């Protein structure tokens, strides 16, 4: 029941009308710049809407309880756990998943850094790690803190059972240092 309409102008933006009182709902939001209209059971999480209804399976389901971070996406640019949010709460919002990061064949700097530092083994946590790092780079940072400590603390919501942490740290550090110029 999905249809794709590129969102290009203010006029085409999805309205933020209040939801109808029901256990089944009509929901519209933009995913990676494309308008999506869905008819969903109210129980459907943002994660399940992305994976099962929109077939964007880059976003992973790990614990499904907000403990592992594999489901991390950006909502209006802010990183969140999509498993602990109902799709219905995101009427009119801009959702960015790992499928929406690259610019055509050109990888996002965080994706490129993960490749260059071999920052994964099995890859299951990787989309969540990359989305979390991308969200982190747009947040205000405490410049008094040691950068590696800062990254470890700010990436603590993303678990990696393969233990690729040293390489993830190196990748995020590279992305952070590359983004410093843009911050100033």
């Amino acid at each position: 029941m999905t249809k794709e309409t590129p969102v290009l102008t203010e006029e085409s933006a999805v309205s933020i009308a209040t939801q109808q009182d029901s256990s089944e709902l009509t929901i519209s939001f933009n995913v990676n710049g494309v308008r999506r209209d869905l008819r969903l059971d109210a129980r459907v999480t943002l994660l399940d809407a992305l994976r099962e209804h929109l077939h964007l399976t880059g976003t992973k389901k790990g614990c499904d309880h907000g403990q592992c971070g594999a489901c991390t996406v950006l909502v209006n640019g802010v990183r969140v756990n999509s498993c602990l949010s109902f799709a219905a709460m995101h009427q009119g919002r801009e959702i960015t998943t790992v499928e929406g990061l690259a610019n055509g064949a050109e990888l996002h700097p965080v994706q490129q850094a993960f490749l260059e530092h071999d920052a994964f083994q099995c890859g299951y946590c990787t989309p969540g790690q990359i989305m979390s790092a991308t969200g982190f780079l747009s947040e205000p940072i405490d410049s008094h803190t040691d950068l590696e400590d800062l990254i470890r603390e700010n990436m603590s919501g993303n678990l990696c059972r393969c233990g690729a942490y040293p390489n993830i740290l190196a990748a995020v550090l590279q992305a952070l240092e590359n983004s410093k110029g843009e911050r100033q």
Partner: protein
Amino acid sequence: MKQFRYLQRTTPHEAMAALDATPNSAFLAGGTTLIDLMKLDVEQPSDVIDINPLPLDRIEALPGGGVRIGALARNSEVARHELIRTQYPVLAEALLSGASPQLRNMATVGGNIMQRTRCYYFRDVSFACNKRLPGSGCPALDGFNRIHAIFGTSENCIATNPSDMNVALTALDSMIRVSGRNGERTIPFEDFHLVPGESPQRETLLEKGDLITAVDIPASSFAANSLYLKVRDRASYEFALASVALAIEMSDGRIANARMAFGGVATKPWRARNVEQVLTGSEPSEDLFERAARAAVEGALPRRDNAFKVELLQRAVVKALRVLRQAGKMGVRA
């Protein structure tokens, strides 16, 4: 997850009316507790009222000092707000020590106040639990109770309040603003949460239909001189085994005013007034800090697996006092 009706409301009045309309309804804010517990069937509301559109997310200085934090302000927004970072560091530190960045971006102040316990038996519906099913029993009493409370317990419940934010707000003499059937009222933070006693299912003073709208932190001479110390099993992203919120005002080399509250060790955010009394009027010293630590654990009732918290809390109290002193916030830098 059980089926429910999803309602979204845009004004406090409409939201409270919707909550009042059915016996088994719940407000939905950040969702980080409610949706988690709905997946576990611990929470089974028939009506979920999404209050995120309500205009309650502002953080603003109060005339005459102090700050008002809207109930829908996100934990991350509060922690990075200039006024909170500079004037209420204990609150910023407590918030940043809780959960993960993603969860802090979602979780609200009102939801954090209402956060449910992490007791394993409460979260698993295959066990009895006096909070979930009053009178069914408490498997934690003689079960695995390493994370459980040593203060404020009863023979019906020993579950801790898991919030870090609540501990800081208790120490800061905060007031919770509530809208209800009979208009607006304010409740001192320290009184808001209830010890389990005979009715562990009743966790706060809220009545049916009530909506938390904001938290007020009054102006004080001690809030800027404050810190939050959290001890846990991991360096990050873990609940407290013991935590200390501390605020101190100095005068002529003596502690003129002290505030202390504990997390991770009690069934509600635990204001340590007896420790405050030990500290008040005295010159900071290692001896004083040790006496404060001993006072901190007066009346502690440990169980089989959490007896270590009695020692851990004393060390946390001493460390919190030392850190504040070494930061030069007790007069001369030690």
